[in-house]
């Protein structure tokens, strides 16, 4: 039997204890900010874009900053591992189940953390393509709109707290 710590697998704890690729990135090409401090998890993903041998655009570097529980930190860490070096198309197609699998599973109540990690990635790519004034795939626009909508709904519910949160970002 695989030994667990709390409700978490060894793999989750490994990423949580020694997270990969964390901390701010200087001059990122795209940033994805998702989640809300009110419900507990906030994830920021930074990406830097480069080119591979075939001249395709790839995620050359990726870093994260996360406020949240063990699962939030572990999913952030593992997604940076899984996405580094992938082409933008591959990153857009990325399936969140891969995050869960790479961690050897997550408790059901924490599965939303893997959604959050993929949302952050999508937002970072959206941000990059918008800045570059590129044509954004329909599917990506749709997902961006959904994430925005969810953010607004939470903001509406917790107006005052969101203000405090924004102030904290600036500090």
């Amino acid at each position, binding site marked *: 039997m695989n030994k667990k*710590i*709390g409700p*978490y697998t060894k793999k989750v*704890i490994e990423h*949580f*204890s020694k*997270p990969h690729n*964390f*901390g701010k990135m200087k001059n990122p090409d795209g940033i994805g*900010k998702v989640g809300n*401090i*009110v*419900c*507990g*998890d*906030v994830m*920021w993903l930074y990406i830097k874009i480069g080119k591979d041998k075939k001249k395709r655009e790839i995620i050359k570097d990726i870093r994260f*900053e*996360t*406020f*949240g*529980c*063990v*699962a*939030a*930190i572990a999913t952030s860490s593992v997604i940076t591992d899984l996405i580094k070096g992938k082409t933008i198309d591959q990153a857009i197609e990325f399936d969140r189940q891969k995050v869960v699998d790479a961690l050897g599973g997550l408790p059901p*109540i924490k599965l939303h953390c893997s959604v959050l990690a993929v949302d952050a990635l999508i937002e970072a790519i959206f941000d990059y393509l918008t800045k570059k004034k590129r044509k954004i795939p329909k599917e990506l626009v749709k997902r961006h709109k959904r994430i925005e909508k969810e953010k607004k709904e939470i903001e509406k519910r*917790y107006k005052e*707290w969101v203000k*405090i*949160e924004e102030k*904290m*970002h600036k*500090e």
Partner: protein
Amino acid sequence: MKKKKTYLDYAATTPVDPRVLKVMLPYFSEKFGNTMSLHNFGQEAKNALEQARENVADLIGAKSDEIIFTSSATESNNLALKGITFANKDKGRHIIISSIEHSCIIQSAEWLTSHGFKVTRLPVDKYGFVNENELEKAIKRDTILISIMHANNEIGTIEPIKKIGEICKRKRIYFHTDAAQTFGKIFIDVNLMNIDLLTVSSHKMYGPKGAAALFIRKGIRIEPLIHGGGQEEGLRSSTINVPAIVGFGQACKISKKEMEKESKRLKRLRDKLIKGVLKKIPGSYLNGHPKKRLPNNANFRFDFIEGESIIIQLDLLGIAASTGSACSSAKLEPSHVLLEIGLKPYQAHGSLRLSLGKWTKEKEIDYVLKVLPKIIKKLRNISPFKKNE
């Protein structure tokens, strides 16, 4: 590799004192009788039960026939609220509780509202204190019961229950207090404090799980929740859990002797811990009142990080603690106690409760003070809300 184990979650549950375990053991296989049997086996068990009842009563200045044994503090609280209201519904249909009660009180009160009762949930101040004037104002003509906990299980705040008891006595309203966290730890006298009903629990004071009691002042009628063979004066039918109750009684006996000294020892360690954490960790705060708190409770919150992450980091170092963070709860909602004392959800996320007990040593407090600042720093490094340095 043997990991150092530091248990600082005594408010959740305590280990059974070896002296308690010793007196329990014969009651499993040798003295296994049913207290309702007339033969010698039964009477042996019955005598042990009554001895335990005296020990429990003795610790709160009650008479032994005022003690009803139950299986848990949750059950005692359910019995107090539902039992009193159902027995007194002709007198009135209004009860008052505080907003920071344990969920078993809150849920019982909630359930009562679906049975024709009205409930006032009294707010508390930033320390978690119920205001006596506010309480008096909340009393209506048909108020039949007021239930305010003795001390809060999360933030450790000790409520002014003597004053509340006086109000209840003057207004002729039954007063119940949930003393699960204080019984056997700080002084309780049901007569001095004008308490009509009091909930106590065994596993928070070095007795076994599965035993608890409700003190019901003589002459107060309550409706039973469990009907059957008529044990416990017909107020709580069920075969008596003799080994657990014998252990509970022994734990009371020990507490009576050692409580005062132990409480002083814990207070010193608690204050050392609080002082150390607030000094060593920037952006750290104490939840609850600095003085009027349980001798063994320290509850902190830390800016920019989340409680479950702290708990697991501590656990990896062998330290057991708890948090009121949403991420660690089954409902993904932060602790109602922390919200009621005015904390915003993001502040409640970063909460940490360390509760001390009989086997807590000073070097364990030193160990926590050594590793906790590092953990907080590490988690803040990952957080996007850290201040730019």
